[in-house]
């Protein structure tokens, strides 16, 4: 099958008739071909090599920055008293948030019977895992005395210094740890049948061995499928509360405090909506180049992108609701501190970051009310990037503005990141894209068996030139 260059518009749905989720008239074998071809090809598009080169360099920079940080101490960052959290925790929350789209697509859209999820769930889940890896990095390196990093975990030690179980920072360790574990299991389990397909098609001994090792003896027997479906449902059910709990716990890091701008009861659902918002923007941002470079436009169709853009619009509105409610209640509460904190955000020294956040997250996605924008690749690429910028700034605004001006004016201070922090942040993107690039090249980017289940019915009959199963 020739590689797919054109987008076929399958976004319009006539009432009473579901639009196709796979275009291009592929049969079952055709789907396998399209996905496996990427991993089996001995070369990759030039853009892939370029991406890997740049991200490897950034990854190296990350290693250097961390080494420098460990050698010199956190003084190389711009943190001060009172701004004890800066880029480090901003990046942590940003990356944790990115991961949420993967879990939502795998778990919640599964329970809602949204079949279009099959085209995007695999690489969204991969994205989740790499994003959580990036996220997990930051709390680990920000603690100052890295040789005591194990204090993060509730390990007993000879000094009888148990972690404080009432601290949301400890809950974070549990929440993110559980999240990573379940996401990894979910992702890997979904991969098994597709890894077996790659194993069966492998031409070289090495790839046959490696794909064979990780497909754990999958034969595709009815019993295997039965167990697989059961396990999938259970993991989906386990992941569903995780979509809500992880970012809720992250929001507790802030909201349990008494700091104006941090302590507000809407934080948990607001953080969750924001996480899904930024996560979907990242999925769109990754899907656009992947489907173009690797010839997946028939499997990740305009309809998938259209749907994701609608989710971005909806969650963007929820985030806007939270911003507005916070402002309203800051005034309604009659608390001078609350009102001051919010005025300082919008009109204080950090006003520009507040308005970057507000514009990118609330105003920009409004363009998705129009169908032409939701199906226009350059538009959605720009919007998804801006949403990610906006969501990064949201965390920055929350963390830095509230810390820098607390209750005592004499304690106020400003914050500016150093080059070390900037490169560490860039390096985390290097880590993310490096891992994602490896995934794209060597693993099936689309869940082959799941997409086959949503093919139009007549495609099950072998078409001319196809081999059926």
């Amino acid at each position, binding site marked *: 099958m020739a590689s797919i260059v054109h987008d076929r518009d399958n976004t319009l749905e006539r009432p009473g008739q579901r639009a196709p989720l796979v275009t291009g008239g592929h049969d079952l074998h055709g789907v396998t071909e399209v996905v496996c071809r990427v991993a089996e090809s001995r070369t990759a598009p030039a853009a892939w090599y370029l991406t890997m080169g740049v991200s490897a360099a950034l990854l190296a920079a990350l290693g250097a920055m961390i080494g420098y940080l460990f050698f010199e101490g956190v003084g190389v960052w711009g943190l001060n008293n009172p701004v004890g959290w800066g880029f480090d925790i901003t990046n942590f929350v940003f990356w944790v948030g990115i991961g949420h789209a993967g879990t939502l697509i795998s778990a919640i859209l599964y329970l809602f019977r949204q079949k279009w999820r099959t085209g995007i769930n695999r690489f969204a889940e991969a994205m989740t895992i790499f994003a959580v890896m990036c996220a997990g990095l930051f709390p680990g390196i920000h603690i100052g005395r890295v040789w005591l990093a194990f204090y993060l975990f509730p390990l007993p030690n000879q000094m009888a210094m148990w972690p404080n179980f009432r601290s949301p920072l400890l809950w974070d360790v549990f929440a993110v740890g559980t999240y990573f574990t379940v996401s990894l299991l979910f992702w890997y389990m979904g991969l098994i049948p597709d890894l077996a397909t790659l194993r069966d098609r492998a031409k070289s001994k090495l790839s046959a061995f490696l794909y064979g090792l990780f497909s754990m003896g999958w034969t595709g027997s009815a019993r295997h499928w039965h167990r697989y479906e059961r396990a999938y449902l259970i993991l989906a059910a386990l992941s569903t509360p995780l979509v809500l709990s992880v970012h809720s716990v992250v929001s*507790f890091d802030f909201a349990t405090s008494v700091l104006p701008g941090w302590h507000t*009861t*809407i934080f948990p659902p607001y953080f969750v909506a924001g996480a899904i918002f930024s996560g979907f923007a990242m999925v769109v941002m990754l899907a656009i180049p992947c489907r173009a470079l690797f010839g997946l436009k028939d499997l990740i169709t305009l309809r998938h992108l259209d749907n994701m853009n609608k989710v971005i619009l909806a969650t963007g509105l929820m985030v806007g609701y939270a911003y507005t409610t916070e402002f309203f209640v800051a005034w309604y509460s009659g608390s001078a501190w609350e009102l001051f904190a919010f005025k300082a955000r919008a009109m204080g020294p950090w006003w520009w970051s507040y308005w970057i956040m507000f514009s990118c997250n609330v105003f920009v996605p409004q363009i998705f009310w129009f169908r032409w924008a939701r199906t226009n690749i350059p538009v959605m690429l720009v919007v998804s990037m801006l949403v990610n910028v906006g969501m990064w700034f949201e965390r920055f605004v929350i963390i830095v503005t509230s810390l820098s001006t607390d209750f005592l004016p004499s304690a106020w201070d400003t914050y500016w990141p150093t080059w070390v922090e900037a490169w560490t942040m860039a390096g985390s993107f290097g880590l993310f894209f490096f891992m994602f690039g490896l995934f794209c090249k060597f693993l099936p980017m689309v869940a082959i068996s799941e997409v086959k289940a949503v093919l139009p019915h007549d495609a099950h009959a072998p078409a001319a030139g196809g081999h059926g199963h």
Partner: protein
Amino acid sequence: MASHGHTIDIFSEPRRFDRAGPGALIAALIGVAALAAGFVMKPGGADLRQFMNSYLLAYLFVLSISLGCLFFVLIQHVVAAGWSVVVRRLAEQIAGAMPLLALLVIPIVVFRTELYPWLNPTDEMKHLVEHKRPYLNDTFFIIRIAAYFAVWTLLSRGFLSASLRQDASGDAAITTRLRTLAAPSLILYGVTVSFAAVDFMKALSPMWFSTIFGVYWFAGCVLSGVGFLALVAMWVQGRGQLTRAITKEHYHDLGKLMFAFVVFWTYIAFSQYMLIWYANIPEETRWYLVRQSGDWWKVSLVLLLGHFCIPFVLFISRHPKRSKATLFVFAVWVLLMHWLDLFYLTRPPEAPEPLLAGSAGGIPLHLLDALCIIGVGGLFWAWVASALARHSLVPERDPWLKESLAFENY
């Protein structure tokens, strides 16, 4: 997977009551009688304030059901859902009672000084109420209430009448248009429901504030709306209508939604409670202090157990959601718990001091609470039952109907 093999033909299905039974009229008469008796006789030495407290509770209970069904209708349209079409007309009719609810809100507006302390602030709250005056003032309050009901009536009647028009014309373009309209309608819905929560309930404690409060009420609305919808579906089937169209598959999905919103409510309630407990700031803890003092801690505990623990354990499994008998219990139970939740939100005294001093007595359940729920509920049921009797019970020419009829959980 939905299989298209054994789809029934909707036009061979009983889907319309031959005549409006006497039930609606009886319900209306009982409703009026109960409200009149309560208002005039004020049993148990009650005063107007007690009557209005009970009336507000009963009213908000019915309003949440109607608003919950409105949300159900809007969200089904916006996602172009197929499974729910066979029960959507019932939800449209329950939401369609909004004109009646707009009428029934009048006593709350007229006797607002009996209910809302910010209209007559104590010395303690004077300073704060003065600050909130741009929002909490008489004129703006009335304007807001009018605006909410304008929006809700417009949305609920608009979606209902478009759906009825489709019964006649079979025009698929109506479905497309409603889907387009549903998205901005949900924005209007979200904003009005949130602020209505502030005006009807949060303003009962004018010194207190919480950003999540609107979401809290929204969770209760959807929960009670879906619960009531399931009961109405059973009632309709019990009277020989839609007996083959609504299957246990649809009940199963309604049960799943109820379960999901039991958990969602808990998530929101927990978020609000935990954050306020943890930060321990007096201006916020005041509201919970009231609800944990005197005998009110018992109500809080019953809510924790009854609104979350018990239904979570009993209804997490697939089977109780697929059996009509157990789903009936589930629906009645969540409605009871939602009523208790509203009681817990609206009834406790504003200030904790009398409770802490032990001088406030027990939980102020009153005979009027029963009379008012019979009254408002009776009128509401009269409206819904007679509306159901006037039209087809199913959007019979909805393009997605065939998907709904063939729907199976897998």
